[in-house]
């Protein structure tokens, strides 16, 4: 079983829709949770960063972590065509145990059409 599972999609939504992207994981030591966005032919860029459980909001984006269920989500409100990209979840157990190594999901490809 892969440590981080993510549905690859593809996901296609109309402009203005609410999008929910999800990952599950198996390692209870994970403490740091990230979402990266990757446009076509570019490197991933950090979108959201969360420590431990709870919610974090940044504009149209909300990251949610439920450590008890080992489940993380990214919500995108009022989706725009510019949100069309691949979204990768990533997580780690903290600096001491993993030396900064991240464990990635395979990415979900999202298209928001006008």
């Amino acid at each position, binding site marked *: 079983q892969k440590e981080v599972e993510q549905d690859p999609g593809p996901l296609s939504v109309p402009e203005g829709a609410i999008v929910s992207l999800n990952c599950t994981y198996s390692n209870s030591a994970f403490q740091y949770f990230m979402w990266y966005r990757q446009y076509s032919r570019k490197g991933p860029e*950090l979108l959201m*960063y969360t420590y431990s459980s709870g919610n974090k909001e940044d504009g149209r984006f909300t990251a949610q972590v439920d450590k008890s269920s080992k489940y993380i989500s990214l919500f995108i409100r009022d989706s725009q065509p510019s949100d069309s990209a691949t979204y990768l979840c990533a997580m780690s157990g903290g600096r001491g145990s993993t030396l*900064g190594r991240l464990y990635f999901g395979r990415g979900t490809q999202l298209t928001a059409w006008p």
Partner: protein
Amino acid sequence: DVKVTQSSRYLVKRTGEKVFLECVQDMDHENMFWYRQDPGLGLRLIYFSYDVKMKEKGDIPEGYSVSREKKERFSLILESASTNQTSMYLCASSGGGSKADTQYFGPGTRLTVL
């Protein structure tokens, strides 16, 4: 802003050639990483380094080697390129402190081996 640069965006090599991929970061980061990214397989860690002259194998080190002679530079070497090493190669770096696990990516090198 953190900047991670990679020596080439596109590279075409022949089977059996020795290939060097260079990565440079300008933020004095301790950790550096090499990944390859393939459709359906996501990001896979090849090697990483948490200090000059130090290296650790990732999940798929076979057929690759690395070199870190200076803190800002991390090189990936394909000793004898093969067609199954055709892929997108991504370099990343991360620093210390509370954001130790946030990785910053370069733009990627798309390598084709003929």
